[in-house]
């Protein structure tokens, strides 16, 4: 056991084995009751429409809008965590930089809020 990457290999094998096992076990042991909803295409929570979007049917993008806004704050917190952990070493410079960063994100937030991006309907 000299190579430090050997455990990774084991992890890969266990992970792959678990995936294969689950698929097979479900197909053998699981109940098989088919209905309409199960045969539909999976579309991120949006009901599939019979015709293409060009036929006058508009797809609501509320969900995507909310998801995109979430990602902005998600990324912000991704940067905030390591900053908070290393705060003692970083000092004033990093604090100022972080405040500037948050202000920048906040400007985008103000725009979204004023333009009604946070209203569901």
């Amino acid at each position, binding site marked *: 056991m000299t190579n*430090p*990457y050997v455990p990774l290999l084991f992890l890969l094998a266990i992970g792959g084995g678990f995936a294969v096992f689950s698929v097979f076990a479900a197909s053998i042991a699981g109940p098989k009751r088919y209905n309409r909803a199960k045969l539909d295409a999976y579309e991120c929570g949006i009901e599939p429409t019979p015709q293409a979007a060009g036929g006058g049917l*508009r797809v609501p993008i509320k969900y995507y809008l909310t998801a995109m806004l979430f990602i902005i704050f998600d990324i912000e917190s991704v940067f905030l965590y390591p900053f908070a952990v*290393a705060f003692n*070493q*970083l*000092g004033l*410079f*990093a604090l100022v930089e972080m405040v500037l960063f948050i202000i*920048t994100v906040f*400007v*985008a937030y*103000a*725009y979204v*809020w*004023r*333009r009604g991006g946070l209203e569901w309907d």
Partner: protein
Amino acid sequence: MTALITSLPTEFKVAQVDYSAIAPMLIVTAGALVGVLVEAFAPRRLRYAAQVGVALVALVAAFVVLVTVSVDAQGLTLERAVVIDGPALFLQGTVLLMSVLGVLTMAERFGGESPDAFTPMGAAVPGSPQEASAMRAGLMSSEVFPLTLFAVVGMMLFPAAGDLLTMFVALEVLSLPLYLLSGLARRRRLLSQEASLKYFLLGAFSSAFFLFGAALMYGYSGSIYLGDISKAITSASGELDGLLIPGVVFLLVGLLFKVGAVPFHSWTPDVYQGAPTPVTGFMAACTKVAAFGAILRLVYVGLEANRWDWRAGVIAVAALTMVIGSVLSVTQTDVKRLLAYSSIAHAGFILVAVLAFDKLGVAGTMFYLVAYGFATIAAFGIVSMVRQGGSEASHLSQWAGLGRNHPVVAAVFAFLLLAFAGIPLTSGFTAKYAAFSPAIAFGGRAGVSLVVIGVLCSVITAFVYVRLIVLMYFTEPAGGEVVAEMPSPMTTVALSIGTLVTLGLGIFPAQVLSLAESSSVFLR
């Protein structure tokens, strides 16, 4: 694994920031953020004036700071992520000046209430009741001005990037606003949306190429800094060439896409045609400046050491770009598509100068970018003025007889076309001279053959331009009357500056040429 962890620095080191060096970029960023706040809080009737004002003040202030403060603060800053040196400053200044002209043409209203080139509501389905009611309510897309400023920030950072990741971030910062802007045309909405989508998909594809290339280069050299990559190439034994060659190819593919070099050019005509005309002008001029700046830095600082491995490929790309750009421009029937193919041909001419691998090649490239950019913004400004039946006369046949009705507009456009063709007394001639002479002097046999191809292609494009001039002056109009709208003082200023620079650089190029030569040395 443990060795890897202990080799990471445990102590945090505060990055040294030279604020006077990056101040122009910070000013433009601040302007863009203020623009977003204006969009959020200012009452609707004040937005247009406020946005145009903020954009112009930010750009001019950034330029003033650039020429007064930043020129004395040259060096590597932000832990080598940003390099402010001669070429970076020259190209940043060029981008700022051109984007002032770009903003002036974007603000054109032709007597209406809102900027004329842009849709009142980009999210509405073209031709839908929502769009009509947005038009009646006097809505406008005044977001275009902050978006332009964000794009300018990316364009300023692009040629100043000292490492591959900063270069990638700059690439995205300049691209994302442009994808949006090209989808906001007021008329021919579907064409505009198609342009936006095509640009976005192909742009994302090329960004992935660039990023993959950056990853391979990191694997090869253990660093993302261009200077370290250059050292790694010089001292390498050759056993990792399997990473180096694909890495270089992918990086170059990503950047050559942005300048629209063949075979990565297919987006150019569609996007130039579909985007709002002032945006096309801004994009054609400033994106080329920024992307060629990045190519220059990557090639001259990072990859010059193994140029014999990839030079032949780029020579082929340059030759193809010139030939295909000029030959296909002959068959075009749409003015904007014609100018798009001409911009592809010009990208080829500029690549000839890049391939000289000499200080003078850098100067020639930068001078060509200045000459081409100012002429392009003015040319697209005129395209947005020439109309038939309320919308832009984009088809070539509609331009017949323009010279009789509007002699001044036609004369200015003819002059700009002659500049594109490279006729003496225009900036096009001096620029081609500045670009081709280093290729002959330092490019060896390949450089000379490229110049021969370039001159032949110039003749082909000259035919196209002369045909258009003949159409404007000596052909009877077939359909309705073509009119040149009376532009506002802002557009007039932009057009005059663009035309005067084109004339001035054709007659007295010495000062700008010597400025380009004196600022053509890269810091490493």
